[in-house]
């Protein structure tokens, strides 16, 4: 109770400095501008920090700074070169090289040969393909946040969903694609839904905090996956992978190989619209959001907190499972170990960056897809380890969650109080 009143007070306490500004519609700009400003500045600041880390840990730059007072120009030039190479290859890996693309178009116009063009847009299509699971996984965590639940289990739900859809994909033969594909997708969603429902149910009935429970489910899913891939679901051969799925279960691709961009992307966008409609245009969605905003108030209004917790976690798990399914059915066509690696923390960052709103999640997922896709190129071209993206990601999470920091850094005034309320102690 104390906590709620404190927050309400914080929201309502007039800020004498900005009172006149607020009447004019906001501190340093309009409301939409403010909502976009913090995430954008957070990303920018994160990238700046990333640049410092990249340059600061590069052996040649460190050596150059050893000679700083004798040759300051070299040190600065080396720093700039390292950062430029790193971020340049990041960009090239994410979008491709503009000159190559133009050349490819020219070749196509001249000779009708698509190959050069296709190769030039390969990085861009790979980024789009990488965005697909991020949209769905980000939506999963966002739905959880909307109900006040922190679903860190997206990684486990992703993995289980992938295994379920792969199983349906390779074990059932002879079905036409318009039955097999939806069935496989549904299987993935169902697997993830169950994996999410368990911690949701435990939270609803016993009050056990979903943070630790979903993390435990993650570890259980890793062990379970290992067993399945080395045992019942193992393809003939040495590697612990599933057999390849049937053609009828594959998500159709837009371009000939090696491009892997497929209909999963469109599906993910459609699901985002669906989630938006569900959360903001249906009664059930409103109940979930009400429980998230104030569980006691919702209970007083007659909504079942238990049912909504379970519903939200099940939905969240289903979305994460669907993310795994699209990855299998659209990109890899088989499942191996560490299949879901990284999607867990990424989806948390995406949901936070997108302010838990479906459209924000799509934008944030877009950014993340490009970053991750480019990072592989950065690793091979500039020798910068992939994990720098995790550092940038963590920093972005902090900056988005502590807008006061960004505001202090860039001297922005507050338009209206913002607060992300997720913690309710360990559940009681």
């Amino acid at each position, binding site marked *: 109770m*104390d*906590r709620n009143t*404190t*927050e309400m*007070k*914080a929201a309502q306490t007039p800020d004498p400095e900005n009172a006149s500004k607020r009447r004019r519609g906001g501190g340093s700009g309009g409301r939409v501008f403010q909502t976009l400003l913090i995430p954008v500045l957070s990303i920018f600041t994160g990238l700046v920090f990333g640049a410092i*880390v990249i340059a600061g*840990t590069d052996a040649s730059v460190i050596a150059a700074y050893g000679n700083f007072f004798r040759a300051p120009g070299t040190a600065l030039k080396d720093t700039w070169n390292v950062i430029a190479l790193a971020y340049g290859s990041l960009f090239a890996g994410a979008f491709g090289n503009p000159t190559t693309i133009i050349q490819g178009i020219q070749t196509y116009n001249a000779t009708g040969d698509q190959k050069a063009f296709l190769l030039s847009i390969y990085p861009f299509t790979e980024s789009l393909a990488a965005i697909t699971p991020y949209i769905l996984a980000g939506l999963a965590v966002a739905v959880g946040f909307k109900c006040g639940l*922190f679903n*860190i289990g997206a990684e486990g739900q992703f993995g289980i969903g992938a295994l379920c859809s792969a199983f349906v994909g390779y074990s059932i033969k002879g079905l036409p694609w318009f039955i097999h594909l939806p069935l496989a997708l549904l299987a993935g969603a169902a697997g993830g839904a169950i994996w999410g429902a368990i911690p949701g149910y*435990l939270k609803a009935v*016993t*009050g*056990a*905090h979903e*943070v*630790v*429970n979903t*993390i*435990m*489910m993650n*570890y*259980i899913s890793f*062990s*379970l996956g*290992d*067993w399945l891939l*080395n*045992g019942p679901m193992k393809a003939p051969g040495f590697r612990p992978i599933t057999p390849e799925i049937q053609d009828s279960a594959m998500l159709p691709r837009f371009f000939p190989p090696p491009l892997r961009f497929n209909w999963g992307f469109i599906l993910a966008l459609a699901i985002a619209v669906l989630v938006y409609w569900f959360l903001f245009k249906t009664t059930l969605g409103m109940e979930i959001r009400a429980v998230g905003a104030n569980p006691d108030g919702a209970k007083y209004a007659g909504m079942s907190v238990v049912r909504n917790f379970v519903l939200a976690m099940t939905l969240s798990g289903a979305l994460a499972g669907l993310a795994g399914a699209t990855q299998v059915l659209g990109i890899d066509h088989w499942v191996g170990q560490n299949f879901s690696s990284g999607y867990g*923390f990424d989806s*948390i*960052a995406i949901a*936070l960056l997108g302010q838990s709103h479906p459209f924000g999640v799509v934008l944030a997922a877009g950014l993340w897809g490009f970053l991750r896709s480019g990072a592989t190129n950065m690793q091979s071209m500039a020798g910068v*380890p992939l*994990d*720098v*993206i*995790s*550092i940038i*990601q*963590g*920093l972005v*999470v*902090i900056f988005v*969650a*502590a807008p*006061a*920091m960004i505001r202090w850094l860039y001297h922005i005034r507050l338009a209206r109080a913002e*607060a*992300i*309320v*997720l*913690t*309710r*102690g*360990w559940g*009681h």
Partner: protein
Amino acid sequence: MATTIVQEKEKRPYFRNRLVIGLVLVGTGLLILLLFGLNVKAGQMASYELTPRGDSQVIPIPGLTLPVQTSIYILALVAVFLGAWQLARGIRSNGVLVGVVAFCFVAAFLLWATAGKSMDLIGVLNTSVVRATPIALAAMCGVISERSAVINIGLEGIMLSAAMAAVSAATLTHNLYIGLAAAILTGAILGAIHAVLVIRFKVDQIVSGTAINIIGSGATNFMSARFLETNTEKLNNSGVFPNITIPLLVKIPILGPMLFENNLIFYLTIILVAVLYVVLFYTPWGLRTRAVGEHPKAADTLGINVYLTRYVDVIIGGMLAGIGGAYFTIGSIGRFDRLMTNGKGFIGLAAMIFGKWNPIGAYAASLIFGFADSLQVKMQILNIPIPSEFLQMAPYIVTMIVLAGVVGRAHPPAADGAVYEKQ
């Protein structure tokens, strides 16, 4: 009048709880019978060595040889009996009952797994106590932090960073103690960051902890790839704290070799648990901490500086987690591997909840988790029909069962997780 109303309110959930627990206990007894009792051949014996192999100063005692099937039947009987008693008459202390039956189940499992073979029981006990160390330290960090109502789930990030700092510093300076100091410093810094984010910037505590986990694992992976994996000799080869044998105490049978032949970090942990318990419950500072955790506003009106208390507690917690991180490298294998904590930080949090935010309770809980961990390794060697992956799941499933309040609801400090605004 008031008491009758309270009694009325307590009756129904109490009865249902008793029914559920009773049924679960009886069910467990039957499970013991079916899974283990019927799967062993009559007449098989299992022998447990109670004197460690190799040279040790302990007074040797003979091992234990048990008839497997009979023992399992007895254990099943005990479980069913306790469950039936609970259903019929009802016993107040649920926790003790569940503990006893859980012990029966584990003992029956052990008997079934070692039927016809022999097992070095002391070795398993020693390993469990040692493996419980990082979990215990993580739990201690959680306890002191949450006693002042700041949730700290960034333990994985802190432990990984401290582990890497420890091994690098120790390798560079050829001095393990400097490595330990580096780990403590890293833990303190990360704790301070969490404290600043949560207290000064009012970031949601779980989000801040998650961010520290993300940055911790990302930064250590990055540094490992950039520096440690290419410069192993200069940065990732520290050696390990040697085992220190305490001369007289090690002669005690069973407890001696289990507890008194371990390294510095283990002894430090035991001492810290005791110190934390005394400080938290018997010193003014501990009282202030607990006051801030239960009702910060009241504490504030009494003149206690809520913010300062929380800062100090979270930073000390960070230092404890730092020592926990040091265990993984300079206390165990002498090098850093990526993501080597493998969830131990979160298990530490579960131990804290299981131990009801009490240092000694949390340590006991960590011992249980350590036992599960060491058993899992042993079972893989013993070659039993259960696939090793399922054994790996055991600690995590146990955590979930514990959190579901099987051993009773746990009540955290009242202001846990709430933002405090001085007014």
